[in-house]
């Protein structure tokens, strides 16, 4: 298994996203400590009410990953996740291609359909059309990335004889799709490179409008089914799951407990673990990155957990 650090989100209206420390510095600490990836989430237009009731602030993930690309050489760079219907697919494709080019082919597009209605309105997108917009984006992205001339006539979106160059080094850029619905899993099996299942407290599933999955046997069965559905591609699919146990951030945490939990992820077929950062200070975040690196991500023992 490989390990991805999610730069901490900031819940609520107060404070500043960068309070948790300079992005470039933490990315370098993560790379040196043996982590394998760095990620940012996306909320370009959060409403005040949503922020007051548990929503979180973000940095623009493409801009932030462009920055991280310059100061790292090995880390994979993930949007965790980018809401595909939020952007015109051309704009999305260009931003993704630029991160991929500037990172020498280290970008992964983590994608979701979205759930925040007011944010959809602010971005000028019909919430009820989010699934067909998502599918149209999946159609357009590889065409844009190919660097070849193309036209596209979709239900929501069309282009005549356009060409986007330079092309990104990864052909195509890997797409990981987040969410638990049958539709999501069908999409992954047919046309994506990875699945990002969600599990956690019940409230998470209400807010994010996705069916619940528990971390144990249910996850293992879902992953096995997904690989079977994907046929020949099944074995190559990545499965990236978030490890949200809060005690992992404690300085005196019981690492044995976390190793056991992560071993069960590995046994279920998870290939990447995403660890959401805990908002804090530069020192607290850097210290966590180093501790986790020493105990799990960068240690020889990590292969034992995967």
């Amino acid at each position, binding site marked *: 298994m490989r390990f991805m650090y999610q730069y901490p989100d900031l819940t609520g*209206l107060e404070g*500043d*996203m*960068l309070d948790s420390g300079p992005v*470039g510095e933490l990315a370098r600490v993560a790379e040196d400590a043996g982590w394998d990836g760095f990620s940012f989430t996306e909320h*370009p*237009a*959060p*409403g*005040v*009410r949503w*922020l007051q009731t548990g929503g979180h*602030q973000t*940095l*623009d993930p*493409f*801009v*932030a*990953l*462009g*920055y991280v*690309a*310059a*100061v790292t050489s090995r880390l994979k760079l993930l949007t965790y996740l980018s809401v595909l*219907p*939020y952007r*015109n697919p*051309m*704009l999305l*494709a*260009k*931003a993704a*291609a*630029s*991160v991929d*080019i*500037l*990172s*020498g082919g280290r970008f992964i597009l983590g994608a979701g359909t979205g759930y925040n209605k*007011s944010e959809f*309105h*602010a*971005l*000028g*997108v019909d919430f009820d*059309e989010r699934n067909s*917009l998502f599918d149209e984006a999946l159609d357009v992205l590889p065409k*844009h990335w190919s660097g070849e*001339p193309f036209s596209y006539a979709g239900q*929501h*979106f*069309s*282009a*005549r*004889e*356009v*060409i*986007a*160059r*330079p092309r990104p080094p990864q052909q195509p850029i890997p797409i990981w799709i987040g969410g638990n619905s049958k539709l999501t899993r069908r999409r992954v099996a047919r046309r994506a490179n990875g699945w990002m299942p969600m599990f956690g407290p019940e409230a998470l599933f209400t807010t994010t409008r996705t069916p619940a999955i528990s971390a144990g046997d249910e996850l293992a069965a879902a992953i096995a089914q997904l690989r079977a559905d994907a046929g020949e591609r099944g074995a190559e699919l990545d499965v990236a799951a978030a490890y949200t146990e809060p005690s992992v951030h404690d300085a005196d945490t019981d690492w044995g407990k976390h190793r056991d939990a992560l071993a069960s992820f590995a046994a279920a077929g998870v290939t990447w673990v995403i660890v959401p950062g805990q908002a804090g200070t530069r020192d607290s975040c850097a210290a966590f990155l180093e501790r986790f690196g020493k105990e799990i991500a960068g240690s020889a023992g990590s292969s034992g957990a995967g």
Partner: protein
Amino acid sequence: MRIVVQHAIGDPAWHPSVLAPPFVADFARLAERHGYAGIGFTDHPAPTVRWTAAGGEGSSDPLVSLAYCAAVTSSIQLMTFVLALPYHNPFRLAHQAATLDALSGGRLTLGLGTGYLRGEMHAMGADPGSRLASFDSCLETMLTAWSSESVSGSFAAPEPGPFSGWSAREVHVQPRPVQQPHPPLWFHGNSAFGRARAARHGAGWIGVLSSAELAATMRTAHLPDLAAAGVAVADLRRRCVAAGRDPGSVSAGLGGLWPMLDIREGWDAEAIVEAAGAAAAIGVGTLFTTICGDDPSAANETLAAFGDQVVGPVRDIDIDIDIRHEEQRI
């Protein structure tokens, strides 16, 4: 006199290696070391085949690319040169600009334009007929977003479709830009539209000297020479005064004063320094240059040599911003 360089990917004959990571980092550091005031990237997410074949610029996402440059430099200004505002949603763009301003320690300058490529606008879901209205609406929404705790508002595109309008209640745009209340805005375009916005909201205006043909392609007024640019700058100053702003607080920038630089072709440094002096005399304080991108080492050598021969020597030229003086001369 300040010189801003557009990254070498802007050369229509660009080679992919000029956007490879080590080169972009070297280019940005080199520009900083040789005294360039800023580095710029343009915005072409979906250019048409026809325009590209006819010599359109190469491009990468400007905000992503500037973020990359921010991480490897410490003082050079990072400039979108320019963003086509009708391609963007105001909340996201305000958020992206704030992200970049925060990551770069307050070095972002937003160059803004209306866009002119019909085929690209179509692919972006933007209506060419309402590009000016959408520009203004986007601009006003961003200004409110940066200066207030929250912003509400809507824009109905004449041809409704995804990504072309918006309707928002109390959106909170964050992070707070380092530059308060927002990164400096420079308005691009030879016609009065850009100067009117620059006089009201801008830190600068950007004109481009060009052939009549290029001006027609870019759907803007034709500025054939410095005399014409002088008239435009005087118009900018008058508009600043009318808007109740100190005319000296809005810079005038000019591109196209000399052709794309290429060390293999050489240039007449003396004539360029002289032209920069003439531009300063009409009140232009920033000059934009393009640079060859077909070969990374040629691009780097060009950047360094032009820096030593021109960027350094013109730095101390004083800019004449006396309005009366300009009006008499013109």
